């Protein structure tokens, strides 16, 4: 993974010092609250229900073992012993003290971590495929471009005060595991007719209050033009995006208001002015950054292992975990392991400091010392030898990190909701527990197959409920929490927005309602049809009828 050079380290150190000074001026009364708000958000610091919340950047989901240990230390020293992974692959700490934050950031800077632009109306952490670099279907590893974008966007002097937040995702190939179609900019690595590798560029996707699927602005962009084209798009947005209403300020609103063709004309005209400038990426720079993401030195005889097959044959629990929680690696003899942060009755995406330390140790022992976070709030050890899987599974199981539910209903993506978040309209954690309790039987979940459940505690949609196969949105009705259910969303290459099935249900009826929805699926399903395909085939009516049938 990327290693800081002197410039990278200096920049992060100086950002810590700057934030320390900003905090000092605020506490001394020299910096107005409203202004400090914008500045602290740009450094990932919110003020929540109980305490400030600090969001630390995990650039495109990559962490070293050393970084994970540092996060564990932060959780232990300044928080209540745990952290929460987010759908932007970042990690949040829910209990730091405002005056401690500069010290936390200084500690993180020692391991090349920061909280730069994890919130605020600026360019956020670029996300990508959690299997980047190790999956057979990718055209090229997207992570070097994520890092190039990270550097270009960090403390960009022109784009620190955009109309609203700005999120970029990159997919490395035709299978989209980065939700790129629901980002302000989605980049797809593609190969053109001449065999050159470049980017298809989408713009104006997003979730939140007004969910929109991104539109193609350019079918093919050469690699060297990546930054100049991004700069052109964002300059047009910065100048023309709405500033009068924060709910209408995202780029998707501008693109829809102008129409994609007019928006494209503006961007292309701007790009014409800068496409031959110093923004052109040099081959040397691309190669330099690519050099940090070279394949590991895999063992040539890893594929000769026979112990895995034996273990799979003799241990059904291990076999289930293997099937659900590991993924084929492009190098024969290796698998990518998904470390489930979706344990039974545990807040989704939460991880204790002991678990962080353990995962760090396991990555050192089994996976070249690297860990990834996913936009579905799990972790990945991407390069594990087949021969090590059984041992790894046993240790993960001990630590409650091996629930074999990846890709199933209880692999829920859930925001912290009203228990923590000041923006939330409704709580989410209790409802997640209710679903966990109702659908505890793994065999039933395996029979149901792939189902993506996303639950957000408010319309800001941090948990991407619009693109869950099943989406749950918490709403406030006269002080009570109610839950609106959508079906048919997807954030993959077949991206679609879920549709609401009817009026919201009460908080104690959510799991029962899901049970009815799933009963319709089981009844209507053709062979091994996936839930999402069934919903698309039969439409919402059968589900509505069942869920809202008058009680007998």
């Amino acid at each position, binding site marked *: 993974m990327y290693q800081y050079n002197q*410039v990278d380290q200096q920049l992060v150190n100086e950002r810590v010092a700057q934030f320390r000074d900003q905090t000092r001026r605020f506490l001394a009364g020299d910096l107005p609250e409203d202004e400090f708000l914008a500045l602290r958000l740009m450094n990932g610091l919110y003020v929540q229900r109980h305490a400030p919340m600090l969001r630390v950047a995990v650039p495109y989901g990559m962490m070293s073992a050393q970084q994970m240990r540092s996060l564990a230390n932060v959780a232990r020293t300044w928080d209540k012993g745990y952290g929460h992974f987010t759908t932007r692959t970042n990690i949040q700490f829910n209990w730091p003290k405002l005056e401690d934050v500069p010290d936390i950031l200084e500690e993180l800077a020692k391991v090349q971590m920061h909280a730069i632009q994890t919130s605020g109306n600026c360019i956020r952490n670029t996300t990508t495929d959690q299997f980047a670099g190790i999956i057979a279907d990718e055209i090229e590893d997207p992570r070097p471009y994520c890092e190039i974008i990270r550097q270009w966007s960090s403390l960009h*002097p022109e784009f*620190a005060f955009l109309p609203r937040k700005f999120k970029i995702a990159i997919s490395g190939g035709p299978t989209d595991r980065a939700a790129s179609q629901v980002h302000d900019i989605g980049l797809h690595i593609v190969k053109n007719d001449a065999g050159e590798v470049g980017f298809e560029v989408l713009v104006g996707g997003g979730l939140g209050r007004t969910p929109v699927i991104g539109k193609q602005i350019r079918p093919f962009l050469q690699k060297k033009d990546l930054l100049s084209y991004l700069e052109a798009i964002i*300059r047009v947005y910065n100048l023309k995006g709405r500033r009068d209403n924060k709910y209408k300020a995202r780029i998707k609103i501008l693109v829809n208001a102008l129409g994609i063709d007019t928006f494209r004309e503006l961007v292309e005209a701007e790009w014409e002015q800068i496409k031959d400038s110093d923004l052109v990426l040099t081959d040397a720079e691309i190669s330099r950054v690519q050099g940090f993401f070279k394949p590991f030195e895999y063992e040539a005889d890893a594929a000769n292992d026979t112990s895995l097959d034996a273990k799979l044959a003799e241990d059904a629990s291990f076999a289930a975990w293997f099937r659900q929680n590991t993924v084929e690696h492009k190098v024969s003899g290796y698998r990518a392991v998904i470390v489930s942060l979706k344990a039974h009755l545990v807040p989704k995406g939460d991880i204790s400091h002991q678990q962080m330390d353990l995962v760090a140790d396991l990555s050192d022992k089994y996976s070249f010392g690297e860990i990834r976070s996913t936009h579905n709030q799990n972790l990945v050890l991407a390069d594990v030898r087949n021969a090590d899987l059984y041992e790894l599974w046993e240790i993960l199981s001990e630590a409650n990190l091996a629930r074999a539910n990846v890709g199933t209903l209880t692999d829920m993506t859930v925001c912290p909701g009203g228990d923590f978040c000041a923006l939330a309209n409704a709580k989410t954690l209790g409802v997640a527990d209710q679903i966990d309790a109702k659908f505890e039987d793994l065999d039933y979940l395996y029979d149901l197959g792939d189902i993506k459940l996303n639950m957000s505690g408010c319309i800001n949609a941090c948990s991407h409920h619009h693109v869950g196969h099943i989406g749950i949105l918490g709403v406030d009705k006269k002080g009570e929490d109610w839950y609106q259910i959508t079906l048919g969303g997807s954030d993959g290459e077949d991206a679609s927005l879920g549709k609401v099935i009817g009026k919201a249900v009460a908080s104690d009826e959510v799991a029962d309602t899901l049970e009815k929805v799933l009963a319709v699926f089981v009844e209507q399903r053709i062979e091994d049809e996936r839930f999402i395909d069934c919903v698309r085939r039969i439409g919402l009516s059968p589900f509505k009828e069942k869920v809202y049938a008058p009680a007998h």
Partner: protein
Amino acid sequence: MPLLINREPVENDSWTLVDEDTLQQSGDIIVPLALYQENQDSLSNREGHLAVQVSGDDNIDTVLENPNQFPLIAVFFPAVRDGRGFSIARLLKRAGFTGQIRATGDVSHDRLDFMTRCGFDALEIPADRYSEEVHNAFSEFSVRYQGAEDDSRPVYRQ
């Protein structure tokens, strides 16, 4: 109002921002763009220098066509969170403007360095936001990734 030009405090500034009522005063004046466009004829024969102030809501195409008709262009920041002025300054530089680009309105410590990098050479800071500390704003960072108006070379071309 405290004024920094090229990062240094300046005591004597000849420029005054005018409105509809004070438009006819003598001396060097900065006229909001809309007011300037309405009164272009009457303003053409006056003595003293003439500058315009633009903001994010203005269509600045005509200014960009011939920016050097003005010795100074002020860019107004209506609020902390309004970052349009950063892009406007870069457009002015790109259009070949060689006069002074002055940041006005909500201008304070934590954006001064970004403003300078985007091409502002004059920073007008409200008195209640000014202290000796603002001078530190320019030395908080010794490194940067992007090219901008101060140096067009991104880190990979340095």
